[in-house]
């Protein structure tokens, strides 16, 4: 009897999972279900090269469209899964179709956090999550356009970098006291603030957006301190929420993400989950966490797909991320926390430095800015739990790998 594996979610994790299932030799039926019209694609370039018009849409695809039929994978685009019946081992789609599975992988990802403010539904207000969002924003981003970006995180700042380069007038409104505050030290925030300001971006921190005004389409953004910003185009990037409703309604364990073990298995023996939507354990970090990252999506999807094929290899990787803004390659390894000791190596004025995060002397995270060697060395040292001497670590003349 041929088995059926269903993968819900055609993002990075879903795309990786079906590739791994086939490469592991699973020759049963595979159904990959996505709610967008595209085959799985790279998401990071959406706020960078694709937005800038430098990368064709097709080149973001993880596999060509023809690959799916060639591998006998039933890809179903534009399909929303609305119900999970664990007892019957079926899922239902919005169109009423019921599909049975032997094993199921939930790779449902995240969705953007919507800003609840008057006028938030006006035209020309966008969120950036999917390829079509990028293409829609790109069409509006012509030279001279007043672009207001709500949120000074990675997405907001990457969009700002592209927009100002395209000749737009760009304002970033950040609610907290500094940009990228959730993920980097104050020294790194200050550096990025300065770089953007130098490029012509206006950054306002501590700004609470209260609403949007305009006749049909957005014309102004209003803030709690009564300041008003003219806007032809608004891009909102204020975080994401995990898509856990399907799992929760199916009565799977959910706690800020679908709860899985180190093999990606949920509280149901026939159901796995992978990627941004999971709350998973990480032995190297010694805790559970939910991560929004490509590395996690790829590595966890492989783990889960392997487990679905009966091969148990626990997932445990130090998380890593990257963000490209202007000529700056920011590479991040590990997760820093408020209270970590911050050691700066190199020279921010030369746009080449690293911020190392030490917790009780132990090297736990790095932000490497145009410091590729530090990034590569840090991947190993952080995984080893290396204790660093802060004075030595601050000396960029000493290679990090030699410490």
């Amino acid at each position: 009897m041929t088995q059926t594996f269903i993968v819900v979610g055609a993002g990075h994790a879903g795309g990786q999972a079906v590739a791994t299932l086939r490469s592991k030799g699973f020759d049963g039926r595979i159904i990959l279900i996505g709610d967008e019209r595209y085959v799985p694609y790279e998401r990071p370039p959406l706020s960078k090269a694709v937005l800038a018009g430098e990368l064709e849409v097709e080149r973001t695809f993880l596999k060509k469209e023809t690959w799916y039929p060639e591998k006998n994978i039933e890809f179903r685009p534009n399909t929303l899964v609305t119900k999970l019946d664990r007892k019957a081992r079926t899922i239902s789609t919005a169109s009423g179709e019921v599909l049975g599975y032997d094993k199921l992988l939930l790779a449902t990802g995240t969705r953007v956090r919507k800003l609840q403010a008057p006028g938030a539904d006006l035209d020309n207000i966008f969120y950036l999550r999917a390829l079509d969002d990028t293409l829609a924003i790109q069409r509006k981003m012509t030279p001279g356009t007043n672009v207001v970006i709500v949120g000074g995180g990675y997405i907001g700042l990457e969009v700002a970098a592209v927009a100002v380069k395209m000749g737009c007038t760009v304002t970033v409104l950040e609610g907290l006291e500094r940009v990228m505050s959730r993920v980097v030290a104050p020294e790194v925030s200050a550096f990025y603030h300065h770089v953007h300001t130098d490029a012509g971006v206006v950054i306002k921190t501590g700004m609470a957006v209260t609403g949007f005004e305009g006749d049909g389409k957005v014309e102004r953004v209003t803030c709690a301190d009564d300041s008003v910003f003219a806007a032809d185009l608004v891009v909102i990037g204020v975080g994401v929420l995990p898509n856990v409703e399907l799992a929760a309604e199916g009565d799977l364990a959910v706690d800020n993400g679908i709860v899985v073990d180190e093999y990606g298995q949920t509280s149901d023996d026939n159901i796995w989950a992978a990627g941004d939507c999971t709350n998973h354990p990480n032995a190297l970090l010694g805790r559970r966490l939910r991560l929004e990252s490509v590395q996690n999506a790829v590595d966890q999807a492989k783990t889960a797909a392997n487990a679905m094929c009966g091969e148990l290899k626990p997932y445990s990787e130090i998380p890593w991320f990257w963000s490209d803004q202007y000529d700056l390659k920011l590479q991040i390894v590990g997760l820093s926390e408020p209270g970590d000791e911050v050691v700066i190596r190199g020279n921010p004025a030369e746009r080449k430095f690293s911020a190392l995060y030490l917790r009780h002397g132990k090297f736990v995270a790095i932000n490497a800015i145009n410091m590729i060697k530090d990034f590569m060395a840090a991947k190993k040292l952080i995984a080893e739990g290396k204790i660093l001497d802060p004075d030595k670590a601050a000396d960029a003349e000493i290679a990090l790998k030699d410490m």
Partner: protein
Amino acid sequence: MAKLHITDREGVETVIEGEVGISVMENLRDNDYELEAICGGQCSCATCHIYIDDAWMAKIGARNDEENELLEELDCVQPNSRLSCQIEFTEDMDGLAIVIAPDE
């Protein structure tokens, strides 16, 4: 299209009709070779490491600075190491032979 000779991590050699105008990494990925390529070609992760056949070294050209820095930190780097995302596959590379480097 141009021929690309590939030796995978198990030592198995195959020849594919490579698509020109895209990177060697994209060709490997499109043809299901085991290779992480996590950053998608942004020269940010060094997970698409390959070795170039010595006879092709001069034709392929030198590493760029970022690529060089990534490669130099790998344990299994060799003089003929390249990141496959940084090589655009062109018609005149017909017959190029590469080996996929071990996973680190």
